[in-house]
């Protein structure tokens, strides 16, 4: 069965239902709008370029088992598996990957979200706070008092 998706800039994509259902949001929408499947499902936060990429990802991973969202699950111990295809897939620039993370987050495509976040984590790894701020253009918005407190804490956070 096919499902049509419409990106924020009006482009329409037709995909297999099981592919689209990797997105938790679409899966839920399909349950609600069972009768009304002629209209494309609007994705207001996702542009055509990103949507195409998300669909490409979902096509490849259509048969994967789902990630269980167990609270006990400590993902720090068990990083997600990345196959060669995934590695190829993540060879994009930072801006594109961040758009993909946002898209995956708004569509709730969990494995893609985790893949993107791992990409981000790999960038952040071993960087100093200053380097991180510079790279991602994040403002240092601490007050001097907060700064002192954090500084003190950090010294003891040797886990």
């Amino acid at each position, binding site marked *: 069965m096919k499902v049509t998706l419409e990106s924020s800039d009006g482009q329409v994509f037709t995909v297999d239902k099981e592919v689209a259902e990797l997105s938790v949001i679409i899966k839920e929408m399909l349950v609600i709008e069972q009768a009304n499947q002629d209209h494309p499902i609007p994705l207001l936060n996702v542009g055509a370029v990103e949507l195409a990429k998300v669909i490409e990802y979902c096509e490849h991973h259509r048969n994967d088992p789902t990630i269980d969202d167990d609270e*006990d699950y400590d993902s720090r111990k068990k990083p997600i598996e990345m196959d060669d295809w995934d590695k190829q897939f993540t060879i994009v620039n930072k801006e594109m990957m*961040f758009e993909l993370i946002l898209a995956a*987050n708004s569509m709730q495509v969990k494995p893609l979200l985790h893949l993107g*976040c*791992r990409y*981000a984590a790999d960038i952040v790894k*071993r960087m*100093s706070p200053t380097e991180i701020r510079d790279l991602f253009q994040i403002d240092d918005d601490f007050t001097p008092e907060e700064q002192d407190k954090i500084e003190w804490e950090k010294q003891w956070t*040797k886990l």
Partner: protein
Amino acid sequence: MSDPLLIPEILRIVFDALETSSLVAAAVVCRTWSRVAPEVLWRSIRHTQTSEAFFALLRKHGHHVRSLDILLNNSPHSPNPTHIRLARILPDTPRLMNLTIGFSHEGTQDAWLIIFQVIKDYLAETLRSLALSLRGEAELEQTVYRFTPEDAAAFFPALRQLTRLELDILPTDNVMSTIIASLPSLVKVSFKEMPSPSAIIHDHFGDDTLYLLGQRLENLRDLTIKFNQRLTSAGFSRLASNCKTLTRLDLCQCHQLNPVGLEMLVEACPLLSSVTLNDSNAHDELLHKLATPARADGLRVLSIRRCPAITTAGIQNIVQRCSSLRELDFSGCPRVLIDVFTEFDWGCMHLSTLGFSGIHQQTLQEDDERPRRVNDQDLESMYRQLGRLTRLEELDMSALPFELRLFAIGRSTIENMRRLNKLDITERKEGVMDKEMIWLATFIPSLRTLRVDSYGVRRRLLGDLVDINSLLHIELTSSPTQGPFTFMDNASDAFDDTDESDDSEDSEYSGSSEDSEGSEDLEGSEDADDSDDAGVSEDPQDSDDSDDSGESEAIEDTEDSEDFGDSENTESSRDSEDSENKSTEDSENSNESSDPNDSADELSRHLQGTWIGSDSDTSDSSEMFTADGSDSFDSEISDASDHSEDSGSESGSGMEGVDGESGEIEDDEESDDNDDNGSDTW
């Protein structure tokens, strides 16, 4: 465009993938990050320091804490003992589900009682998992928290939510019956005792209690019992009649269990996916039962270290038929020969962990032939077989009685192991060569832990290897001939003996290697592994290490020099890059030593691993820390810089560096060694 890295729910996932040192840095980037990072940072805490200030912070972030693994390491008689500090903060950890407490001092019965009271009063509703472990001195002094029946009756019934209970003692029948009656929803139980002179064997719970356990704990899936000398096959056959749902079974060193009893138990539990029977009487027939068509697919983990009855045929059964197997360890099974690799294709293609150290030994069994000399064809077959296991992450091929010829024959095989994370090639027949180390560091980027004999390894090389693969941690094991352990000579006899003295002698190996699995981030514990290994090196074939090394090196030197032209070039170019980076960093540091961010950076880098410490710029950073006034780290940083001086000045005989480094933790591990020595009494 909104920034994904300012959305907390996304940040949480990103931070999940960061290791501690990066999280510490992330926590000071901005307000949003500083709110999210502690959630992840404090969620699961292991191997902490136990300073006053740390406990204060732990209390502050107590509401994030789900898992806490803490070692109470100062004496209960000291002015401000850590168990009192712990007892004070536990009321502030309302979401604590998993608690592991280690004690390393003897005479702490009172300390336990205080902790029990707090757990009972504040954590009864949340606690799912409780592990009380003994380390160091406490491990020897088994009476440390031997529950009285009254203590048990006051404590266990309160823990209504508990599903996992792990104790480093074997409770008495009386205490066991309290546990079983009060906690019927237990899913996992583990009762381990270390073989020690003070163990009171007749106090171990017996067959009747085991029966009760099987009957009352309907949800039991995971059972671990170590060194219980009272349980017999009769008890296990009765357990088997009730415990058909067991999925994980670990019975190490329960010497009264005969092969038939084990077989019966395994046969009665069709859902078993993980079977650990180290130092047991397991034999081939049992493996045959596990490899029947109905069950073969279900087996995920099999560990049968040092089982003298297991032979090549038994292992072949497993590796051919158990296609879902993930972990297999038949290290120290002397009657398993290299033929296990040569005759058939293995079917367990999903294997991620494989250990076969110390196989192919001369045994005393009369019907056994002397193992044949391993030739190049055997090695080729072995590497071909290993090469098919593309998912291997951990490989232990230490202590083998033949030359590995890792580079000469195994090269392409090893290079194709894209996921290889940990490689153990200690106690080698041939010496370790520089180019081999460089090769491993260069061509296996996934490698994180490499264990090699320290003999002949130049300390300066280790610094270079850090530049090639900065994530690689190299564990040096002192060669048995240089260590303080002298029972090498008769080891070849003792090794195959089936009597208990040998089993318990070996036992520390399994015990301590299990411990080390759980100690990723702690520098000390990694070092402890080293000292640990010195005690384990009783494998016979190492005495002639030094003889062979020169020879094999000479053979391979010629062919390798050209192969390595490339990698050495890249290495040196990286080297210079790095030193540039370092110098800029250094100048930054000295200019802005008041800037907190850079000290965070330093801290992170310090946290990254032991070998980072041998970087040339650590001494600078130590000065910086002193100037900063953060005295807590002074000692550690200066340790690290001392260490780097060591490696600089005496690159030839760098052994002392290793020893000094591990000295801190050796107190704990000493008990293991003592155990080894004392175990002769068994």
